[in-house]
Each structure stands twice: as structure tokens, then as C-alpha cells.
């Protein structure tokens, strides 16, 4: 891209740029290019006089092209767009390729959220997010943005659930996809959402099938345990299921350390301390020895009912 300067641009002749003042011998100083340095000088000057204009939009676009991780420039751009009552669809059209070329950037997502909030419509957003996630299936900012979008526009739909399911089908170990599913079905922690029995049964069946594909995958186990905890149901079914993968009396026939963990919890609840200890011992000595300290701590808790409760 050709360099762009402002000092000989008649459109900017009225602006006296403000040079960066870092004091003497600054630490972590950057030898900026002349182009970046000058553009920032004009932005500081525009910000100092609270200018929100078309030319400021051009200037912020220019600087974002040079440094997309510059939150100040994004925030000032958002305010300029708002003040000018600018065409926000055009802004989204510009943002799409910008986001794709800066996958790890996080200011972009907050900016996008601000724009979509103002536009008041989620149209096209799900597709765009899916494109982003194809590049980076566990991108935290993209998933968080999707959660915001669902919440803001009430997109708790069959379509959203199916899409999430396709992400899980693609990689049953994608914990971000499991979290999104939880968010869709069970909502935000402590918001007291009621989930009907049909849905709960559907979720239990779905997650159990996922566990059978790879029993040592913790993501669906956490989901399954979460369901039992959230809906406060009897753990009898959970126990039956976990026993498919681990039996504390058959230590040569154990297929999942997470099943042992679940069993240890349930036995503790049932006051079957010896069985719980067997599960924890198997974890500490053979099936998850790197966490031996933790499993032994859980054993100690078994004998302190007031703490374990």
C-alpha cells in the first residue's frame, strides 16, 4: 500500500499535529515510521479539539491499517461514526475483511458489537462469525461476541443449536462449542432459567453419545455433570452411566478418569466412603497421577463431612 501523509494535504491544512511527547529516555520506545508518527500526530490534534468528521474516519481507517491493536483509535472511530450518524452497514462491510486479516485482534470485536448494537439487527452476523471460526475454531473473542449476539437479539433458536452441534460434530473436544451449547440451553449462570424436562433429557442423551465417542474427553463430562447439578436431579442415572466406563472394583477395566472422578463424588454423597476412596486412589496412583495431590486432598475431605458437604 502506498504511504499516506497529511502535512501537504490541503484538506488537513488547518490542523497543527501534536507530536508524541514521551519525556526523556522513555522505556519500550518504538521507532515509528514517519507515516505512523505523522498520522498519530494528526489524530492527537483532532482528538484534542473533539473533531468528529469524515476526514477523521479516513484517518482512523489509515491508522488501523498500520496498527489494528490501537484501542484509542477504535473507540474514537466509534464515537465519530455515532456523531456523524454514518452508514453503519458500510462500516460492517469494511470491518469484515479487516477482521479476517487480524484474527487475534480483540478491539475489532468490541467495535463490531458497538456497531451492531446501534444497527439493531443481527442480519448476516451468524454467517460472518462462522467464517471467522472456520479459521480459528476456539477464538475466545469470537465466541464471546457470538454469546453477546445471541443474548442481545434472543437468538436461542433451533438454527443456532444445530450450528453449535455441527461445531461439536467437527471436533468433539472443542470446549468453546460445548460452552456455547450450555449457554444456549441453560443460559447464563445464576439467571434462574427454567429448562423443561424434555430438553434436559435431550441434552443428557446427546452428551452421553458424545462421551461414548471418546470417554477420556473432559468437555462433555463437565457438561453432563453440569446438567445434574443445575437441575438438582438424582445422580442415580449419572452413576449408572459413569459405571459404563469405570468400576472401582475392576481396576483393569477403566476407560475414563473422568468417570472415576464422577463416581468418587457420588459415592461421597451416598456416604460410601470406602468406594469413594477406591476411586480416588485409582486416580491418584494410576489413572491421573499428575493430580495425585488433588485426589488425596479429596480423600481427606471425605473424613471432614462438614467441609465436604
Amino acid at each position, binding site marked *: 500500500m502506498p504511504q499516506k501523509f497529511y502535512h501537504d494535504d490541503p484538506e488537513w491544512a488547518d490542523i497543527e499535529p501534536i507530536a508524541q511527547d514521551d519525556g526523556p*529516555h522513555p522505556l519500550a520506545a518504538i521507532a515509528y515510521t514517519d507515516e505512523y508518527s505523522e498520522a498519530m500526530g494528526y489524530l492527537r490534534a483532532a482528538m484534542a479539539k473533539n473533531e468528529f468528521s469524515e476526514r477523521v474516519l479516513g484517518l482512523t481507517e489509515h491508522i488501523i491499517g498500520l496498527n489494528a491493536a490501537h484501542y484509542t483509535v477504535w473507540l474514537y472511530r466509534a464515537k465519530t461514526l455515532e456523531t456523524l450518524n454514518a452508514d453503519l452497514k458500510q462500516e460492517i462491510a469494511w470491518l469484515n475483511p479487516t477482521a479476517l486479516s487480524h484474527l487475534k485482534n480483540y478491539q475489532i470485536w468490541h467495535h463490531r458489537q458497538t456497531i451492531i448494537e446501534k444497527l439493531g439487527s443481527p442480519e448476516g452476523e451468524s454467517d460472518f462469525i462462522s467464517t471467522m471460526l472456520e479459521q480459528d475454531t476456539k477464538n475466545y473473542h469470537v465466541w464471546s461476541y457470538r454469546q453477546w449476539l445471541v443474548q442481545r437479539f434472543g437468538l436461542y433458536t433451533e438454527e443456532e443449536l444445530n450450528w453449535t452441534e455441527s461445531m461439536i460434530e467437527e471436533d468433539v473436544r472443542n470446549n468453546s462449542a460445548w460452552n456455547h451449547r450450555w449457554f444456549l440451553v441453560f*443460559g447464563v449462570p445464576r439467571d434462574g432459567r427454567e429448562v423443561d424436562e424434555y430438553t434436559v433429557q435431550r441434552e443428557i442423551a446427546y452428551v452421553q453419545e458424545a462421551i*461414548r465417542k471418546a470417554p477420556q474427553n473432559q468437555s462433555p463430562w463437565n457438561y453432563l455433570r453440569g446438567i445434574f447439578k443445575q437441575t438438582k436431579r438424582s445422580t442415580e442415572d449419572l452413576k449408572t452411566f459413569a459405571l459404563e466406563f469405570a468400576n472401582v472394583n475392576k481396576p483393569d477395566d477403566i476407560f475414563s478418569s473422568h468417570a472415576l472422578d464422577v463416581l468418587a463424588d457420588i459415592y461421597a454423597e451416598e456416604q460410601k466412603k470406602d468406594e469413594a476412596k477406591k476411586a480416588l486412589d485409582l486416580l491418584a496412583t494410576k489413572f491421573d497421577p499428575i493430580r495425585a495431590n488433588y485426589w488425596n486432598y479429596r480423600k481427606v475431605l471425605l473424613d471432614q463431612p462438614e467441609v465436604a458437604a
Partner: protein
Amino acid sequence: MASAQDPTSQTPSSRLEETLSTSARVEELSDSDYEEMETLTRHEEANQAYLKSITSPIEDLLDTASSEVQDETLRAVMPFLIGNPNDFDLNSYGLPTLQREKHVKFLKQSLGPFPPQFAAMDASRPWVVYWCMQGLTALGQDISEYSDRVVSTFSSAQHPEGGFGGGHGQLPHLAATYAAILSLVIVGTEEAYASINRQTMYSYLGRMKQVDGGFTMSPNGEEDIRGAFCALVALSLLNLPLELPPDAPARQHGLTSFLDNLGEWVSRCQTYEGGISAAPGNEAHGAYAFCGLGCLSIMGPPKDTINKWLDVPALINWLNSRQSCPEGGFHGRGNKLVDGCYSHWVGGCWALVEAAAGKGIWNRAALGRYILSAAQFKKGGLVDKPGKRPDAYHTCYNLAGLSWAQYDWKYEKSEGERGELDAPYHWQLDGEYTEDVVWDNGDMVNRVHPVFVVPFGKAESCRKWFEEQTWSSKGTG
């Protein structure tokens, strides 16, 4: 057991077996003489035996994108856990010694100046200064030669309306504010403390407070749990009032204190997995877990606040699951890869959790192994994982992680209040960790404050200085 494949047919883990037989070991030994080879072999054998002893025999056969990148990671990490590809001196446990001088040199270089292609760092310069100052002090360096420069660097980043930005003319941001304050706390001179404008800071923090209890990072910026933690760090260290400033927008909705709805908000960030997310509904994540626990540990004694606002057994289960096996280092989320920065983000959660739930819950030795064996870069600086380049961020947080492994902490609420948000000034060293250690005296780093992540003692001095200043919300200094 319909479709679960039998994992016992591959005992011990085929991944481990595969890596044990790679050529890295042979190359390592190729130009050593017989006596050295004997020594190396003994260490390698010991390391192999250790790795087998902590590896679970269970492994699923199903391949997905997650297991593929995990296998790749193991191929990169294992040669470092077994042998010594960097040719470092070994300590008495047969692991690489802490490469102190090389890391010091690396951090000093990381203070700049930087060439033009580093422009992307323009908004993160306060972080770079903090990571370098914290890293250098963890390594036992006297940083007084930088004192004046730290103060002058940040004075131009302080915003006229309060808080610090990434640099001159940038909008205030709570991450920059956090990094700037901590850097000035590490410098610890009166000049450094006095350079912070408490009055405008107070007003800025008031503008960040949200009705739901959380904090935004910047004006009209994102609201996440970093905001809550960074704001409380500032309020506590600068001994600011808890009462919201008169012009705080949240006041219009009936809030009167910085702490209003905050415990509830943090609590809503704990997910069904037991970990803590950036904001309610997001995925549990190691770095946000530290922010959440740090925030609660400033609000009050961890035993009270953590137990009050979080499901602690679920939290401990989740935190423990973050230790990668057999790597020993931590990852940030379920089914993600080990990364040296989580040596701190997850490792740092333990002192806070142990103060709330009891000690001896996690594996310090395994973390120490990962940091010493796999996270030290040949030419200095520490890394995410072998094959990655070092940077100040990974250097700072691996070294902090080493400190969490090496020291025990206790929280003792003494008699007498020191004012608002004084909870984080009651930590005491509970000695060095001595069981199953894998480091010698020469590998020890300095003590780090469990909440503030600055040299222990520095936060206390800062708070004390501000307690002695008279407060006026309309004052000038």
C-alpha cells in the same frame, strides 16, 4: 461399553512411547564423549521414568483437530522434558538450571527501543514496562537504574481526565492503568507514588463502574472481569474511597459503592465447568480465573469472599484439570494446549484458593519441570512452548509461575483494620516449598505478592504511603 475403544491395549501411552523413540536423543548424544554420555543417559532415564510415572494409561483413539494439535505439541515438548536440547547446565535434579543472566539480558533488551515493525505494541507499552520490571525483580535484579525512566514514561501516558493510557494522547484504559500502577509500585519511590494523580484516577474509576456490578475497561469499552480486578487493584493500592464519586454514572441507578453488585457479578462469571469466564456466559479461562480470584481477594479475606461467591469444590476441580499431562505446565481452557503464561494465570490462582480451602492441592514439581526444562529459550527469555519465540510477557509470567511453585503463602487476618480494601495486605510467607522439589537454590526466584504480582513488600509500602497522604477528592496530588 458399546463404542468406546479399548485404551488398555496401548499401555503406556502410545504418544509417550512414540516421543521417547525420536531421534532428538541420539542427536543430543552424538558428539559427547563416553563419560558425558553416561551422565546424560542417567538423567534422561530418570526423566523418562518420571514421565511414565505421571502419565495415565488411558488415551482415546478418536482423532480430531484438538487431538492433532495436542500430539504436535507433545512432539515439540517431550524432547525438552527428557533431554537437554539447549545444552544448559543441569541442576542436581538433572533439569536445566534457571538461566538467570540470559533472562536478565533478554528483559533488559525488551525495554526497547524497538524497530518500526513493533508499532502494533504502541498501546501496550505500559505492559512491556511492567513485565520487564516484574521479571527483572523476580530474577533478583536491582531495577533502581530504571526508576526515573519508569516515572517519566508513565507521566506522559496519564490522561488529563484520569487513569493511564497506552501512551501520550491515548484514552485511559484499565489494563494500561493496572500495568502503570504496578510498575510504579515496583519502583517504589516517593516520586513514583506521587506521579499518580489519585483524584482524577478516582473519578475515572467511577466512570468505569457499571450498574450490573462490573467495570468497563475504557470509556464505552468492553466490560469484562479484567476491569473488575484492575479497578480494585487501583482502589486498594492508592487507598481510594469505596464510595462512588458524585459524578459516577452508576449513581443514577442507585449504586453508591464501587463494591455494589460486584460479588454477584463475579459469581455469575463462574461457569458450569467450575472455572471463571471473562463475562457471564463466556467460556471458563485461566487468565480470567486469576482476575476473578484476585478481585475477590481484594474485596475481603479469601476465606470469606471466595467461599461466599464461588462454588469452591467445582473451582478446584477445574483448576486442577488445567495442568497438562505429562507436560506439567498449564493450559487456559479445556482441551487447549500448554502455554508458559498460564504458569502464572493458573499457577497464581493456587495461593488464593489455598487460603480459602486448604493446602497441598496441586502439583508444584510438575510445573517447575515445565518451566525449567521446556519454557527457557536457548538464548534467554522464556516462552509459551518449545518452538516459540520468547517475549517479555511469557518471561514475566513463567517466572511468576516458578515463584508460585517455590513458595508457600498464608493469609492471616490480624487485629485492627487498615481501612477499606485492606485485605490483600495480610499475606505472609509460609516458607519455601520443600517436598519433591526439582530446583536448587540457584534456581530460586524472588517472592511475588499473591494478589498484586509485584515483589513481596512493595504493595504494602505503596499502600502505607498513600494511607499517610491526606485525601481530598478535589485535591491536586
